[in-house]
């Protein structure tokens, strides 16, 4: 169980009638990595996963697994296994028969397949329940059985469709850790679809953020957080404020100045823009300070519209610079040293290097 395959997606599209769900995306998932597809519902992440699994035909493009182009292969011939959102355990079979199902389909004789299934259940610590039906199990137990059933085929890649969405928040965090550990132990490629940023950040080696059938960014969690590629990524991942405007000047030091619709001018470091070009910047909410702007620290004046106390931090929502939900996260010490109230005018600023010039998805 150590053979992991690289998954190579080459300009794969999915067209349903007149609507295109996935727009010619390309992506390489390194072997043995934990990859999370992240995006809002309807962004094409599940369609992409199902195309890798073979449960959805590929309208154009190719999927390569290891050295084999599997575009036209049926699901079971691809060397992938899929774990379904609601686990899709067979309600009429006990756990052994559920796990042994694929072996039964291959014609493995009864004793051999039941023995192997029991080994798989042992690995998942579900052996004591082997003769139960799925309906008699809790959500977390069902997930383990579904994993056992998927892994018994010895796949090169495991595809998980929102595996944690059916669990309660506490169990979610526990099963998340279990998934990560399992992936490390088995060393195979996991591709995991989710709409939870937190889940993706916690699990992934590679986060693929999709929107509207396109990949907005595919990078490590740290890079996605520190250098979001587009305004969508910055907004979707949270923890960033996005300010938009049009470029007014770019100087030779790599500083772009732009003007928001409200008329404020901000500076940001990044590649030069033609005057008039649209510019979006992302500013980390925890790097904004309650201090007046200077030459090195752009900023603006706004009005506090909401204050949320969160224990270790305090979240201020500020109206200004064309944004009505500019968020500032202050540590509780900083906030209580200089408390403000709703309706107060405040000066906000941030270090030049804490703002990221965001790009746009082309094509």
């Amino acid at each position, binding site marked *: 169980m150590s053979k992991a395959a690289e998954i190579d997606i080459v300009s794969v599209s999915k067209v349903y009638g007149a609507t295109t769900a996935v727009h010619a995306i390309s992506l390489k998932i390194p072997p043995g990595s934990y990859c999370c597809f992240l995006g809002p519902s309807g962004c094409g992440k599940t369609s992409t996963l199902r195309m890798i*699994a073979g*449960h959805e035909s590929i309208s154009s493009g190719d999927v390569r697994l290891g050295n084999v182009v599997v575009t036209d292969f*049926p*699901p*079971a*011939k691809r060397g992938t*296994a*899929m774990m*379904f*959102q*609601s686990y*899709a*355990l*067979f*309600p*009429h079979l006990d756990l052994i028969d559920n796990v042994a*199902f*694929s072996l*039964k*389909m*291959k014609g493995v004789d009864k004793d051999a397949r039941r023995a192997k299934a029991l080994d798989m259940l042992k690995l998942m610590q579900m052996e004591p329940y082997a003769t139960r039906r799925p309906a008699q199990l809790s959500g977390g137990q069902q997930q383990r059985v579904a994993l056992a*059933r*998927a892994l018994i*085929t010895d796949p090169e890649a495991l595809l998980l469709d929102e595996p944690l969405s059916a669990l309660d928040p506490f169990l979610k965090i526990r099963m998340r850790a279990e998934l990560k550990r399992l992936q490390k132990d088995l060393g195979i490629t996991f591709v995991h679809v989710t709409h939870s940023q937190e889940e993706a950040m916690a699990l992934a080696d590679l986060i693929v953020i999709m929107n509207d059938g396109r990949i907005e960014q595919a990078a490590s969690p740290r890079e996605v957080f520190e250098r979001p590629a587009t305004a969508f990524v910055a907004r979707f991942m949270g923890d960033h404020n996005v300010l938009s405007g049009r470029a007014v000047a770019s100087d030779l030091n790599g500083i772009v100045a732009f003007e928001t619709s409200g008329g404020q001018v901000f500076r940001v470091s990044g590649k030069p823009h033609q005057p008039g070009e649209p510019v979006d910047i992302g500013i980390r909410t925890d790097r904004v300070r309650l201090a007046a702007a200077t030459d090195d620290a752009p900023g603006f004046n706004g009005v506090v519209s909401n204050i949320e106390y969160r224990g270790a931090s305090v979240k201020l929502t500020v109206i200004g610079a064309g944004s009505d939900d500019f968020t500032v996260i202050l540590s509780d010490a900083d906030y209580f040293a200089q408390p403000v109230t709703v309706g107060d005018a405040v000066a906000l600023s941030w270090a030049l290097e804490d703002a990221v010039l965001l790009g746009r998805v082309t094509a």
Partner: protein
Amino acid sequence: MASIASKSVAEDPAQAQARSLRLPPAVLSYVQATPLILILGFFFLLPILMIAVVSFWDYDFAGLYPDFLTMNYEETLGSWITWKTYLNTLKYTVLVWGLTLAIGFWVAYFLAFHIRTTTMQMVLFLVCTVPFLTSNIIRMISWIPVLGRNGLINSALIDMGIIPAPIEWLLYSDFAVVLALVHLNTLFMVTPIFNTLMRIDRSLIEAARDCGATGWQILWNVILPLAKPGMAIGSIFVVTLTMADFSTVQVMSGGQSASVALMMKNQMSLLQYPAAAANAVVLLVVVLMMVAAILRVVDIRKEL
């Protein structure tokens, strides 16, 4: 806040009054169940009890005499005609059950898995019910011009030169009886099976495919086991209806075959009510045993 407070104050006396009139919960449930108990009692339990009582009475050509005799049962069970008739009825039932199950399953399977839109599914399902817009008798009688000696099928086959003389066994035969019964009862199989098939989570089928199952393997290992409750419910409908049928057997066999219910009908027309009642009790027991057998094989509780 103020309006909520004033409202609760205004309602207080009325609420207090309602509380004093309220019956204890245990009594209340019985009151709620009374209408159904009355209806079932008068139209179901009472008639069955009367049949059971009458089955022990004495009779002659002129009247019924309250008594407690086992003669009616001895005559019914002791006569080889009864046994032959039961055997014949069972033969029809097994044939009709097998055919309606096979046809009903495939129709339901087609509707549930091969028709993609819900609208089309509903339209086609309603098409299945169209024959039920006419009465049983009319649907049965309309087979006669099709199957008769000079009917559609025979004359077509003769005109095409395939057969020299009309096929005699098309009408007034066991074939005709089974054909008409299958025609009348298949929908009772289609409906519950369609219902169970529609409840099968489609991701189960994908999961089976992911495990490498072929179409037939999915059908055999996933769909059929999960359709069992629907098949059991349909079987109960078809078995009870076929066991109790007399008009189809009479019309389609041209009076040449007998069924248990037909035997009872004949006894009643001879005013042998106690004998018919004894027969009815025996039939009831047999049918209940068959239903019990079906329920033993398949757990239908999931469906209810």
